[in-house]
């Protein structure tokens, strides 16, 4: 769970390929006898992650599992929401862009086996723009021998850096 600088609460519940945000300011009913949980449908927004589902399973039966929800401030930008996508070698990202929230997948194609649980942003050089900052995570699986490389393979640290535009230098 994470709360961004605007007060939006962000959460994914494991097994759902979606991240939800909740804005309490939009709620008409917050307490009282009718406030049993479902009193504020207008406060929720859903950001769905693309990906495969189980054959024959329900629409929500994602084969992947989003792990911890976090907001980043230092690495990729302010109020960037991330969740490690455990079985998909990636992070699912919801980020503000152009006044709207857009989604993004940060995938680590190799070595295979990224199972990221969490991460932290860090600014190494505030004057170096995007090159001076990054988002750090790790291969955090319980069974590192299932990673590419097999037996003896050790966990690894991963650093993500995102250019503001594809041609940014």
């Amino acid at each position, binding site marked *: 769970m994470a709360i961004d600088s605007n007060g939006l609460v962000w959460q994914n519940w*494991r097994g*759902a390929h979606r991240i*939800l945000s909740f804005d309490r300011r939009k709620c008409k009913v917050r307490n009282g006898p009718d406030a049993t949980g479902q009193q504020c449908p207008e406060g929720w927004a859903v950001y769905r992650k693309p990906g495969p*589902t189980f054959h024959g399973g329900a*629409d*929500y039966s994602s084969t992947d599992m989003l792990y911890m929800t976090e907001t980043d401030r230092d690495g990729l930008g302010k109020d960037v929401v991330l969740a490690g996508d455990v*079985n998909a070698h990636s992070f699912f990202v919801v980020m503000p862009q152009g006044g709207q929230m857009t989604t993004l997948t940060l995938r680590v194609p190799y070595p295979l086996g990224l199972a990221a649980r969490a991460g932290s942003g860090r600014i190494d050089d505030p004057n170096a723009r995007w090159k001076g900052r990054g988002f750090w995570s790790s291969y955090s699986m*319980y*069974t590192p021998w299932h990673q590419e490389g097999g037996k003896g393979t050790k966990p690894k640290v991963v650093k993500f850096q995102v250019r503001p535009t594809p041609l940014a230098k």
Partner: protein
Amino acid sequence: MLLEDVRDGAPCDVMIQVGEDSLDSCVAPVAILRCHPHHQLPNLRHDRGPARTAPSVAVVLPRDQLPMRSRSTKPTTPKRRRVGVRPCSTRTATARSASGPSPRNRSIRRRTTGSSSDVTGDAIHPIVGSLWCSGIGARDTKLVRIELGANPPQTCKAEVYVPPPDKMPLPGFGGAWRSTATGWSGRTGAALIGS
């Protein structure tokens, strides 16, 4: 610090035991006179600075704290119990709000006895300082907002919010259920799918 303690003193517990003398613990506890947070003595030695921003230190659980050196390195076995301290709380969550150094936001004590719900995440609202918790487990997709009020826990108020079914159809916690009642789940870290 731990290595120094190994050479100079008796082994100590990583976790503070309720009612245990503070000399025996690696993490020096704050004295609690009665059973409520507002009876806790101010920890001016360590907490006199301004509050930090909430996202960096939202909630610190005892297991996440770095061990501090005991106030005494003398062996103190057997462990003594302090007379007159009621074991009212076994877990402590310290929260600091970016909204200011409000004393009531600094310490939230939770009873573990009788707890029936699992919390998968918690965070402090950076603007108003309220505590948010999220449910975990089968069919538990609740968000709970806790506002402490002027005199917690008597003045605590809680609100519950659940996503509508059209936006969150999943029962929750990593599984999908077929009509044949077979549960399917791809588990963390393993390249396996179990049913």
